[in-house]
């Protein structure tokens, strides 16, 4: 009897990546690897002052250079480039791609050069002479709120970009505020924890900087734009709108993209300028960002100050939380700038059932690079504030940090759980993650190890943190771009499968995970599946990759599109086999009748028949291709537990991470190998934030960490081996049960490392330490303790 070989199911397996062969051989194509005939190079002259009025711009020397095609000042560009749009409903000052009369952060562009050679473009930009009437630089966030030492945008008194948004218990949809509950919570408190905490400013630092190649073809009246972006479809929409073109007239392509981490969601001035200048001059224009530019010209992340007050009973029961948030958003609103801190509001209570919460958010302009989404985007900040407060409570009550958390968890039977902040947590089992974290870390033994080290005079500490994040963004009500994702699936006439996804990846491995899903769905070898992405002329619709949404939203769209095609293919197969479509099995590259593998056809035969359907089964159209949009009814809420052990050198204050344990629950996993990679990467960035990363400005508004000489990102030598574990609590929000995992690592790691540092220095009476854990800062605590 003929038997059909059953292909091993791939979903859930550690399938090695299909992207890798090109990447490991230097055969991938990033934007700077592209050349278009006739292409010229763009360079930006940038402000070297943080705040000032432009008095004069002398471009004559630049213009006189042989090989310089054009020079434009900001004012000249403003004649054909409108102010840049933002993606949030908040009021915003006009923001030109290139400053027209006033510069508001060091690094803001003031003029551009187009030249026939990259080196020459840089020479010519350097030859432009700009004089400024310097204004006082607004650097200190809280001083800025008093309108001192200057007001950056005249229409925004006291530099308040967003004066005050209240949220939480007692705050009505109409903005009405009732303080009864929150006041009662604090009145009933037996212990109150109060702490000012800074979640510091960071540079996202994808290893590939930004870059764009814009090619307007006058004869066709259409534009092709390649950009190192996380979301080519949003880029297409914006470029079309800004250039008076239809979306059908712009083709946006994200080629290989060398990391994004949120910073490549934005559509930047450089992209608008490249596109508009290409259109104006009718020639292809390329701009590639230098690292020195990236530090000042690509958005920064975080920079939120939190005044945290936590009210509790002495048994550890939390009664209330007040969170005063002040976000330093830099000089302008970018695409999502104003919305990021609202995610901090949304997730303020973390994994805890807190009866009364009051959050108040203010956003402030300063003369710094604008902030926007950076891996985690608002949620690491929320996690950090609530987790640090829980630790301080545990410390105050002399309770184990796990115990105080356990006491306040939202319980498994309470899901879906509507929080006072307006989130509806989909599913969760926080105690399970905590329990596994404690087990994997060997918590009790670890405490003994710490105590033994302390007995030898070493400064060793332990930290633990829980997190829950909002992922899988999200319903369209929460995203101005639309909150769906799109996919198309085609069975080609030779039986191979090509599928498109709007979730444009930049390291996430969608070409592999999505192919695993389709291979299983259709019972074909993964080698027969190709995943296409990143090109708006191939991928009909899409939103993009951010907010840990690729799998939960994009993956589901793919699954649904595949389902539609499979249903149709089954009808063709049924006709061919003279069987009922309900009785068919797709397995081992064949389609056959259940229980009768011999009665079947190869997958390719059925595909071929669908394209030459003689006879055409009644009610069917030829072909096997369909698409699906998927919009989730809710976000997903992955969670987990991070535990760390850290030692501080008593003489130098240098911290060393000894142990990092992470338990993450991202729901169902498609490819655990890739998931581990995502968690490792998130942990690395969280540890980086906790320990070595910080953007620093001096009082003149100059960024003093403007290169890798002064801004540290982690090296291989900075980490111990991470120890991962996982629990699986599927989400009911999508049929895959997948929640998303891209940002998880950044959430628990920061508070747990700071907790470990505070624990290590507990003999000196310290209760909180702001990030980063600069050795001198720790040394001063040690010195203070001795004095």
């Amino acid at each position: 009897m003929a038997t059909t070989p059953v292909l091993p199911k791939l979903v859930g397996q550690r399938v090695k990546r299909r992207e890798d062969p090109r990447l490991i051989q230097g055969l991938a194509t990033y934007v700077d690897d592209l050349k278009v005939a006739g292409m010229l190079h763009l360079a930006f002259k940038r402000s070297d002052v943080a705040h000032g009025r432009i008095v004069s711009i002398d471009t004559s020397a630049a213009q006189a250079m042989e090989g310089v095609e054009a020079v434009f000042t900001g004012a000249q560009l403003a004649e054909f480039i409108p102010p840049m749009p933002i993606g949030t409903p908040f009021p915003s000052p006009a923001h030109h791609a290139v400053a027209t009369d006033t510069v508001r952060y060091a690094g803001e562009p003031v003029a551009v050069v187009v030249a026939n050679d990259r080196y020459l473009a840089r020479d010519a930009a350097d030859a432009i002479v700009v004089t400024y009437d310097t204004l006082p630089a607004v650097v200190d966030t809280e001083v800025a709120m008093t309108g001192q030492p200057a007001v950056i945008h005249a229409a925004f008194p006291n530099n308040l970009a967003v004066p005050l948004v209240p949220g939480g218990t007692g705050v009505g949809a109409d903005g009405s505020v009732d303080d009864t509950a929150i006041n009662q919570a604090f009145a009933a408190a037996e212990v109150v924890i109060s702490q000012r905490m800074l979640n510091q400013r960071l540079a996202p630092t994808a290893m590939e900087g930004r870059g764009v190649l814009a090619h307007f073809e006058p004869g066709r009246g259409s534009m092709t734009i390649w950009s190192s972006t996380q979301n080519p479809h949003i880029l297409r929409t914006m470029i079309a709108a800004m250039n008076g073109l239809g979306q059908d007239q712009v083709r946006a392509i994200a080629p290989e993209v060398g990391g994004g981490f949120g910073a490549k969601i934005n559509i930047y001035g450089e992209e608008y300028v490249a596109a508009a200048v290409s259109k104006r001059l009718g020639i292809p224009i390329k701009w590639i960002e230098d690292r020195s530019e990236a530090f000042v010209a690509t958005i920064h992340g975080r920079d939120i100050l939190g005044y945290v007050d936590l009210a509790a009973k002495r048994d550890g029961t939390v009664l209330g939380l007040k969170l005063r948030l002040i976000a330093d958003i830099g000089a302008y609103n970018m695409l999502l700038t104003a919305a990021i801190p609202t995610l901090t509001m949304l997730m303020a209570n973390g994994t805890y059932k807190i009866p009364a919460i009051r959050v108040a958010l203010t956003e402030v302009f300063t003369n710094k690079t604008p902030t926007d989404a950076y891996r985690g985007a608002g949620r690491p900040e929320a996690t950090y504030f609530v987790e640090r407060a829980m630790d301080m409570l545990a410390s105050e009550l002399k309770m184990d940090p796990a115990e105080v958390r356990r006491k306040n968890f939202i319980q498994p039977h309470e899901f879906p759980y509507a929080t006072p902040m307006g989130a509806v947590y989909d599913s969760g089992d926080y105690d399970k993650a905590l329990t596994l974290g404690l087990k994997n870390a060997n918590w009790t033994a670890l405490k003994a190890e710490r105590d033994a080290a302390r007995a030898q005079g070493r400064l060793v500490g332990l930290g633990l943190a829980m997190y829950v994040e909002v992922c899988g963004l999200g319903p369209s009500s929460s995203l101005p771009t639309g909150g769906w994702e799109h996919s198309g699936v085609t069975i080609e006439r030779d039986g191979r499968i090509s599928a498109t996804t709007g979730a444009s990846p930049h390291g996430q491995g969608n070409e592999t995970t999505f192919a695993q899903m389709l291979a299983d769905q259709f019972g074909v070898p993964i080698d027969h599946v190709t995943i296409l992405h990143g090109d708006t002329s191939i991928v009909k619709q899409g939103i993009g990759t951010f907010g840990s949404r690729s799998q939960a939203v994009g993956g589901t769209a793919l699954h649904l599109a595949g389902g539609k095609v499979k249903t149709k293919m089954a009808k063709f197969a049924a006709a061919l086999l003279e069987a009922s479509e309900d009785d068919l099995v797709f397995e081992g590259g064949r389609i056959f009748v259940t229980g009768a593998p011999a009665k079947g056809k190869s997958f390719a035969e059925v595909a071929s028949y669908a394209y030459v359907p003689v006879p055409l089964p009644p009610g069917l159209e030829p072909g096997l291709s369909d698409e699906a949009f998927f919009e989730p009814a809710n976000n997903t809420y992955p969670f987990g537990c991070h535990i760390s052990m850290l030692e501080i050198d008593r003489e130098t204050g240098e911290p060393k991470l000894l142990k990092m344990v992470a338990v993450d629950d991202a729901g169902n996993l498609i490819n655990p190998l890739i998931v581990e990679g995502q968690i490792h990467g998130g942990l690395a960035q969280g540890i980086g934030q906790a320990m070595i990363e910080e953007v620093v400005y001096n009082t003149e508004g100059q960024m003093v960490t403007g290169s890798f000489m002064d801004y540290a990102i982690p090296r291989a030598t900075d980490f111990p081996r991470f120890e991962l574990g996982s629990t699986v609590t599927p989400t009911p929000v999508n049929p895959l049960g997948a929640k998303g995992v891209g940002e998880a690592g950044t959430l628990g790691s920061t508070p747990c490392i700071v907790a470990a540092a505070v624990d290590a220095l507990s003999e000196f009476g310290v209760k909180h330490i702001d990030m980063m854990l600069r050795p001198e800062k720790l040394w001063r605590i040690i010195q203070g303790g001795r004095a």
Partner: protein
Amino acid sequence: MTQVAITVNGKLRKATVEPRLLLVHFLREHLNLTGTHIGCDTSQCGACTVLVDGRSAKSCTLFAVQADGSSITTIEGLARDGKLHPLQEGFWEEHGLQCGYCTPGMIMSAVNLLNDNPAPTEQQIREGISGNFCRCTGYQHIVNAVQHACKR
């Protein structure tokens, strides 16, 4: 302009270049060997790492004219006769990359490391790649990838 003759991946390449042309731009722009990347301006990130006369070097910190007469190996020259280098296989098997941008430089540094020390400890691997930044992986799978290559 200056004449250079540089052997790249076994093939002698002659060109007339501006003296200030960086080696990395010579490889990328003149030879279209775009596997070597640029990630910083200050000789830290290592994305541009190639082998110059057998030793790893940051090709953004070397003018092409300085490499005149030298022999360069880039990521494109690592696979032989269609067969991946053991390090390339290791990176693939162990998921040693995500966005892939740092990967060519990372692999070239690992080649240098294993040339000097074919059986490094984990700490020696971490030190051996400490001149290369990866923002995606947290390095653990990269360490695994190098260990995988050592086993072969």
